[in-house]
């Protein structure tokens, strides 16, 4: 494919948009047009996001259950995540997300197990509550967990099984923490609804259950980091060196046990804003713990996040330590970046993934001089594109109303007035909290931003931009690669990673060197493709 030259900026994608929309029936075109925005960082533009995918469209999106069980609770190792429904939902969410976890010997770890009530037709007809109760008893007898979460799949709500009352009954019977999630697949327009439901459930049933004594001078939670490919391990190591005690991570390499005392943290740092901002908000309201957005994807972003954390605590020793670590790590990072950059600089990337990764990974690409020409999220909301200041203006539709918005009140005995005061003081000096500005301000002018990109649009985007690398998920991977364009999975990292923090940045640079500087894609054409046809003849020696 002949390459385009974007050294003087990106072309206006108006024509491309028109071509994309032309194919759709009128109503579909009208809707999709609002989800495609030609970016201009100088002005705010509204994008249609977090709305239903039109039936029949080949979407990247999954369901509410996937967001609740698969994403948020899946990585937590000391809980039995019991899926109430036919077998498939449990099967597909069984170890498929590469959430690494490090359980010490003797500690519980149920991540390697899939638990299901395997509902049969008689359970659909006569109700599944009895079977659910029995399954909980059997799980308890076999595994002796300290907590069990029940995850509802599509039929559960429809047949009227009340997982919450079952949870209450069984909690009383067995004396362990048991709670349910109404995360039926159809509840929301994407995984996003499931994240919210999971946040609510954990907050309601777990957070604050244990008032543990302080174990460190500076205690933090890291929210929205799922430890894909060991990302969280990289960040954990940094915190430890800097002298910050990580109380809990939501939810990579995590335990329910740590969620229970996570309200004892002095600060919440939010990685994936989309999936976890609810808990950050609720913890602030109830316990007075301030939160701000961080990003440990990209070396520069990591440095910035660490500095912000040190500034928050205002401890000169920590500030010095942070600078020491950054200086030391940046040396290593820069050495690799300098070696890789000449091979990849100027290449074009596109990324359509997640609720934060499509934004975060642009930082890593920028460090290598790779341009992001088009990007979008799979399940994000307007605030993830345009920034949190648009939240009050987001229309609340029926699908959003469907998800419970927990009413949280101040916990008078445990509310951290000291932290609230600290926050107020810092804000006076221009320090920002709750500060997610979204993806679009960080993107180039004329970059095409598309929400919930679908198969048809993916094909056309590749033909138009001829990108050098495409970032998405497993369902898109081989489609894109058939075009001769390498695809990097940003959900699962294709067996790679970690890509977080400084060590992760180095891994990612090397991975980009592998993907962008290789010649394997040039093997596609057979040598005889461009040669004249061999002339057939009848006799051997002619």
């Amino acid at each position, binding site marked *: 494919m002949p390459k385009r030259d974007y050294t003087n900026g990106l072309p206006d994608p108006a024509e491309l948009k028109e071509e994309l929309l032309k*194919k*759709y*029936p009128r109503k*579909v075109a009208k809707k999709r047009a609002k989800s495609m925005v030609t970016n201009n960082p100088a002005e705010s533009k509204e994008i249609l996001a977090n709305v*239903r995918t*039109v*039936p*029949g*469209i*080949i*979407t*990247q*999106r*999954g369901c*509410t*259950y996937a967001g609740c069980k698969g994403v948020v609770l899946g990585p937590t190792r000391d809980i039995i995540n*019991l899926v109430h*429904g*036919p*077998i*498939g*939902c449990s*099967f*597909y*969410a069984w*170890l498929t997300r590469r959430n690494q976890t490090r359980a010490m010997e003797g500690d*519980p*770890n149920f991540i390697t*197990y*899939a*638990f*299901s*009530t395997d*509902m*049969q037709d008689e359970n*659909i007809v006569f109700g599944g509550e009895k079977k*659910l109760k*029995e*399954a909980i008893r*059997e799980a308890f007898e*076999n595994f002796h967990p300290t907590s069990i979460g029940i995850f509802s799949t*599509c*039929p559960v709500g*429809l047949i009227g099984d009340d997982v919450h009352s079952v949870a209450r009954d069984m909690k009383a019977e067995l004396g362990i923490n048991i709670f349910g999630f109404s995360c039926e*697949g*159809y*509840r929301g*327009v*994407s995984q996003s609804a499931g994240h919210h439901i999971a946040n609510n459930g954990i907050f309601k049933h777990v957070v604050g259950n244990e008032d543990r004594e302080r174990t460190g001078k500076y205690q933090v939670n890291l929210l929205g980091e799922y430890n894909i490919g060991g990302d969280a391990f990289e960040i954990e190591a940094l915190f430890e060196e800097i002298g910050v005690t990580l109380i809990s991570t939501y939810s990579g390499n995590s335990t329910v046990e740590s969620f229970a005392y996570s309200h004892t943290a002095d600060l919440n740092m939010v990685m994936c804003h989309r999936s976890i901002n609810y808990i950050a908000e609720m913890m602030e309201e109830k316990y007075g713990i301030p939160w701000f957005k961080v990003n440990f994807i990209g070396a520069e972003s990591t440095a910035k996040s660490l500095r912000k954390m040190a500034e928050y605590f205002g401890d000169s020793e920590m500030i010095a330590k942070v600078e020491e670590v950054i200086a030391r790590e940046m040396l290593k990072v820069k050495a690799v970046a300098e070696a890789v950059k000449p091979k990849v600089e100027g290449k074009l990337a596109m990324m359509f993934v997640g609720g934060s990764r499509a934004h975060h990974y642009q930082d890593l690409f920028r460090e290598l001089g790779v341009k992001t020409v088009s990007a979008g999220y799979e399940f994000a909301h307007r605030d993830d594109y345009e920034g949190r200041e648009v939240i009050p203006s987001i229309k609340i539709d029926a*699908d959003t109303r*469907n998800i419970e918005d927990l009413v949280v009140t101040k916990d008078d005995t445990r509310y951290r007035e000291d932290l609230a005061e600290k926050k107020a003081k810092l804000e006076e000096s221009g320090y920002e909290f709750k500060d997610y500005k979204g993806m679009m301000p960080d993107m180039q002018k004329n970059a095409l931003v598309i929400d919930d990109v679908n198969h048809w649009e993916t094909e056309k985007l590749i033909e138009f931009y001829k990108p050098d690398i495409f970032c998405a998920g*497993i*369902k898109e*991977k*081989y*489609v894109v*690669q*058939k*075009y*001769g364009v390498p695809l990097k999975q940003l959900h699962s990292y294709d067996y790679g990673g970690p890509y977080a923090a400084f060590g992760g940045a180095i891994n990612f640079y090397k991975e980009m060197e592998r993907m962008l500087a290789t010649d394997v894609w040039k093997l596609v054409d057979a040598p005889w493709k461009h040669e004249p046809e061999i002339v057939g003849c009848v006799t051997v020696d002619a």
Partner: protein
Amino acid sequence: MLLRHTTTEIKERKALTVNPAKTCQPVGAMYAALGVHGCLPHSHGSQGCCSYHRSALTRHYKEPVMAATSSFTEGSSVFGGQANLLQAIDNIFTIYEPEIIAVHSTCLSETIGDDLGQIVAKAKDDGKVPEGKHVVQAATPSYVGSHVTGYANMLEAFVKYFSFNTNEKIRQVNMLSGWVEPSDMRELKRMAGLMDLKTVLLPDTSDVLDTPMTGKYTMYPKGGTTVEEITSMGNSMATVAMGDFATRKAAIMLDNKCKVPFKMVDIPIGLKATDRFVQAMALAGKVSVPDVLTEERGRLVDVITDMHQYFYGKRVALYGDPDNLLPLIEFLVDIDMKPVYVVSGTPGKAFSKKALEILAEKVPEAKVQNGASADMYLLHQWIKQEGVDLIMGNTYGKYISRDEGIPFVRTGFPIVDRIGHSYFPTVGYTGGIRILERILGALMDKIDATAPEESFELVM
């Protein structure tokens, strides 16, 4: 330990499934539909079903897997999914332009009682199905049977919709294949070709889920059974159906609807199942078995005798799907291995009965269980009670294998932690050699990794 909570002691379970040896119907329907040319599978349910099934199939085949979804929301779940499906059909034919949409239901649409037949009829009445295009539908409730059941239901739907007896019998044999790899489908056609038989294979995922890299993506690759071929199945001389669980329904449908008689055989995995397949094909097509196949058979027997000393008496634990397990355990028994534990999540008494019949004489101590609570947790507990020398099954077996230090051969669906399995057949005589080669490799790799230095051997 990866599976640190698995105990040796077995407590009876009636309600809890742990580490299933099955998944749900729709993914089977999706795979079967991909084996029809120009067909786009459609999942009538929540987005997650379609997303999960596409992901599972993609991870196994490492190829594009396309399918659409009705994208149910709360409203459709309450008021029914008719509007969603009608809109989906319209959009799919407009945007993705398939020849056929193969709709399968899900637990959601089945629970609310959506009638696919009625909705599809309405789509036709409303003019949403373009001239010459087709919408095939199959009910695949996830709370009945397993992924194999869904595969069977979709196959049945295809022959029900397309196959037609025009009273012109053609010299052609139908082959209905159970769930095997694209390379296996290719191998079945190659073997039939050696017999000089004209055949139609349904489904046929070769050249669909193993397409070459060309620098261009083709949404509907050249492979897959064509509409003309499926239609012509109604005029064939006979049907050879491979795998009771996956193909009997379609075979019966062809018999009832088009009066094409059928012969049920196992999927030709291993020596004897392949023998029966070859004989059934010869009989159905009224041809004799060519020497070249007899020679292939001879090579397999030769390899068996060469390897026999390493296999003899070795205990094997297996899990997977009934149609694939039955011929496989028969093969293992034939080479004097001992399939002591066999588990399948797919329900159906016929499986355990047949498996025990195969094992009765040579492995009377064997434990076989399928259906409810027949899961990999139980299999692991059996292994903890008395160990085995080899585990065979899908990717998930690697956790047991590593914890217990047992050699492991991947087979079945899904295999998501390796690449290449879909390119080499395990059916037929040649496929049999491949199975043996892999078993021997796994057994010997362990010996090589653990033997004391003084007994570390070079020559076999």
